[in-house]
């Protein structure tokens, strides 16, 4: 059995949402939706799993915090303790109030950049990568819904999509 992808273009996000809901109630899976802006509520309907990128950011942040702590302990207390302005560096805990600002900045630096890098890699966005939207109009004002189905079901689904308000249907 050969599979076929149906691309349905909508002029508005509301009919697309309604159609996606109907497809789901019939047990038909929506492969993907491309839109010019985030459609709130679509994730639950088409089954986009919750991203774990915020958890990554937390881990990167903790790493940044530990790195800064280790760096300042090593440089100020362990490797070459200096006494600047009558403020000696005998032990880490004695100077820790002065180390808080840099510990905080390093936490933010690592969390933000680590998360951004993860985001770009996870979406596979790198300089020179080909644009992933199948139809260039989806960054302007069109909404694209893709259903992958078996050859024999395609007429059924096409009727469903058309009834839902699709303005164009094509097969890929």
């Amino acid at each position: 059995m050969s599979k076929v992808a149906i691309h349905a273009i909508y002029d508005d996000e509301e009919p697309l949402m309604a159609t996606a809901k109907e497809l789901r109630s019939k047990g038909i899976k929506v492969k993907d939706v491309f839109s010019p802006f985030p459609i709130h509520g679509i994730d639950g309907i088409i089954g986009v799993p919750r991203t774990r990128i915020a958890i990554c950011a937390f881990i990167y942040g903790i790493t940044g915090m530990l790195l800064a702590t280790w760096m300042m302990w090593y440089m100020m207390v362990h490797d070459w303790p200096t006494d600047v302005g009558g403020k000696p560096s005998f032990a880490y805990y004695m100077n820790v109030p002065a180390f808080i600002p840099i510990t905080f900045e390093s936490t933010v630096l690592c969390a933000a950049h680590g998360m951004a890098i993860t985001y770009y890699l996870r979406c596979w966005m790198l300089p020179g990568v080909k644009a992933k939207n199948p139809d260039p109009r989806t960054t302007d004002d069109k909404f694209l819904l893709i259903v992958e189905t078996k050859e024999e079901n395609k007429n059924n689904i096409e009727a469903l999509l058309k009834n839902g308000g699709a303005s164009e249907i094509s097969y890929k």
Partner: protein
Amino acid sequence: MQHESEIREPLILGNKSYHQITEDIVKPIEGKATKYWYMLLTVSVICFLWGIWCLSYTIGTGIGVWGSNNGVDWAWDITNFVWWIGIGHAGTLISAVLLLFRQKWRMAINRSAEAMTIFAVMCAAIFVLLHTGRPWLDYWLFPLPNQFGSLWVNFNSPLMWDVFAVSTYFSVSLVFWYTGLVPDFAMIRDRAVKPFSKKMYSLLIFGWGGSARHWHRFEEVSLVLAGLSTPLVFSVHSIVSTDFATSVVPGWHTTIFPPYFVAGAVFSGFPMVLTLLIIMRKIYGLENYITIKHIEYMNIVIIVTGSIVGVAYLTELFISWYSGVEYEQYAFLNRATGPYSWAYASMMTCNVISPQLFWFKKLRTSLTFTFIMSIIVNIGMWFERFVIIVPTLCRTFIPSSWNMYHPTFVDIGIYTGTIGMFFTFFLLFTRYFPVIAQAELKSILKSSGQEFKEKAAHSHDAHH
């Protein structure tokens, strides 16, 4: 879909569709530049080039060419550094803090405010890098293993904290800005006709697709970045204030500095956003997106932060008297009545008195008045930093070292140069970048667009 109260004024005026928003935002990029744009660019580039010349002269000869002297060793350099970095803070406040508070009106202004942040921090960086005196050794600021027995930098010093704070702030703001720009660049690329611009924008979008998964991650990243940037922006200016507050100089050694500096930073940044946007909305015809309501909201932020700054000035004065420390008392008396009393008077007038005029609705919704006020507040905030630094340093503990400070043409030239650089970059930004976050704006069209709000109000009436 979200619903918004009917009595809230619409954020997008006129009869707009998704496609119309696209058209309005790409117009300045696809169209030809106006003669005003060329005129403004020419003036900015001339100032920029003059600044580069003065900068080269400083590096070639030494900072003896500045007006700074043995007593007043920090002067225009640090004044300008603090001024620029403060201006930058409004951009982060708009894009991060207002995102966390779910303020939809930020969407029309966040992109240009963030651009302003980035360019302002670049200007600020010039002054800190130059004021070290030997800018070719500035890499010593970073904790790098070195040939001096690995003598490390001093992490107990607020100046060191500043290095980390400013570099983190700049790079995180840049990433935040760029991540938001990608979907809008994709919109421009997908309709670009000229092969060169299509190629350039293709490189910039990194292969963005706009699928449900992409948007889901995009929103999560924006939210977490906003959550990280919010404490970051407060930390940066608090750390800048500790450059002064941890010293033993009377007039600087005060615990009020961190909150007072942060409020002052936001207070100085919003007027700069207004200066830029009032010109931009006019030249590019964006009046339907950056409405009078947006300007009124920003003016309200100015009243609030301006009042905080006013209270801080008065608290400082009271505490210096109440402390009973004669050096502390003299420092403030000298600021208000000494040789630089004119600077103190300008600061008080521009920052404390004039923003209170925004309590009148008529004034805070007037474009001309807002524009004039935005410039007055920027001047006032520059004087604030000048008053903190120069009058304090010219009258320190030993009267024999008391002396006056006079800026040289090089001081003025570098400052003018950074203003030129700032406007040059901003003008180029408005010409090649989407100046409004159009993807975000499209998502609120149905809840906050004028046409949709009126329709919703009609159908609501019909039910009764």
